């Protein structure tokens, strides 16, 4: 549905709404990357910056919701237009959560900066967050391009993030068993890893919204679950 509306102001409203969402998405991508980098580089200044920037993300979510409510009230959107507005609302909520997780990572960085890195685990965290950021970038591209195929690929890639999280979990467990002095840092790192894994779920949900936007129905939930940590026993 690429044709223009007869009422061009309707097109402008929908474009503005999606532009605000994309701006929000860009800010969240930055927050994900920079929070992980601040951890790896022990860069407190950068962490503080990420923490503060989350306010702007929250404000954008509010703006998206207000604009969406206005479009619903004034334009009574139907069919593809309706799905555009509905998905914008949902995706903005997903982005806002991702922003919160990035902020949380930055907060933990402020604590972890006091301690030395536990044997390269910060690098694992950065690789994991890099993967989530790339997924988010593709999910947002898929949204703008109305590219169902790309969205489906993003959904499948969540598996990789889950596997990275499971690997990190095992790594942290090993370090804690080796030396109890690692426990504080490892607990923080574990929450960080879990939060990034949750970001992956939110990005997956964004990709699912893209499928709904394009096709009118949600994708079948057939993707394999790779978070195996519930089955990881002591002494692995």
């Amino acid at each position: 549905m690429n044709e223009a509306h007869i009422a061009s102001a309707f097109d402008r409203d929908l474009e503005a709404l999606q532009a605000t969402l994309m701006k929000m998405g860009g800010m969240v991508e930055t927050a994900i990357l920079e929070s992980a980098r601040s951890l790896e580089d022990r860069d407190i200044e950068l962490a503080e910056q990420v923490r503060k920037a989350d306010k702007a993300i929250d404000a954008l979510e509010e703006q998206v919701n207000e604009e969406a409510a206005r479009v619903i009230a004034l334009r009574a959107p139907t069919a593809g237009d309706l799905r555009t507005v509905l998905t914008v609302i949902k995706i903005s909520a997903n982005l806002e959560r991702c922003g919160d997780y990035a902020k949380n990572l930055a907060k933990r960085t402020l604590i972890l900066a006091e301690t030395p890195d536990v044997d390269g685990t910060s690098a694992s965290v950065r690789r994991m967050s890099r993967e989530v950021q790339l997924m988010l970038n593709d999910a947002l591209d898929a949204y703008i391009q109305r590219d169902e195929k790309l969205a489906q690929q993003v959904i499948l890639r969540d598996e990789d993030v889950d596997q990275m999280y499971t690997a990190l979990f095992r790594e942290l467990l090993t370090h804690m068993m080796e030396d109890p002095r690692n426990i504080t840092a490892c607990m923080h790192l574990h929450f960080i890893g879990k939060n990034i894994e949750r970001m992956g779920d939110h990005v997956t949900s964004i990709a699912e919204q893209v499928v709904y936007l394009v096709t009118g129905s949600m994708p079948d939930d057939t993707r394999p679950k790779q978070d195996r940590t519930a089955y990881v026993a002591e002494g692995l």
Partner: protein
Amino acid sequence: MNDIKISASGVDVFYGDTHAIKNVSVEIEGNTVTAFIGPSGCGKSTFLRCLNRMNDTIDIARVTGSILLDGEDIYDAKVDPVQLRAKVGMVFQKPNPFPKSIYDNIAYGPRIHGLARNKAELDEIVEKSLRRGAIWEEVKDRLDQPGTGLSGGQQQRLCIARAIATEPEVLLMDEPCSALDPIATAQVEELIDELRQQYSVVIVTHSMQQAARVSQKTAFFHLGDLVEYGETGHIFTNPEDSRTESYITGRIG
């Protein structure tokens, strides 16, 4: 799923050389409001008028195909169009009360069809129809006054009351609210929903929101074709045909 009230198959309509309806097949359900939508000139009113043979009154109109009401062909030679129209009533775009009293506007149909044996029965029919037309309270004290003296919204409800006085099985409405203000529109829409308990209602409307509000089934016509016909909720959230989507979302299609 309700019973099929009207079953049309392979209907074509020509006005002289103009092919106004092209091979349309549709099944109208009982106790259901069905909305016909589409741009001007798409054939929705023409098709509506086939359902009670209003096109018979147009010399150059030619209707082919079959339209069954409860399984009986309404275009069969032995069907009396006047009797048919008592069963398939119609309400038009502009309120058109007879230049008679409010009472006689309603009593006219039942009188010519012999539905009342005496004055008491006729009074009863008039009151019942006006009540069902949601206008009784407003006119009960001035039944002898001319129907043309009522406000536009009241006149339209009077016309609906008149249409249901003959106990039709199907009520056809051609843009019934286009001349009404939002309050009167809401009253007529509420009335349409009540009428659904007893009748099949088929409504032609240019207001997409009205179609969405009042109907359970929606048919989209375009250039004489029935493009899409389905459950209203589905048509307005996820239409199958790109022409339907273009039309309902206000795009040039």
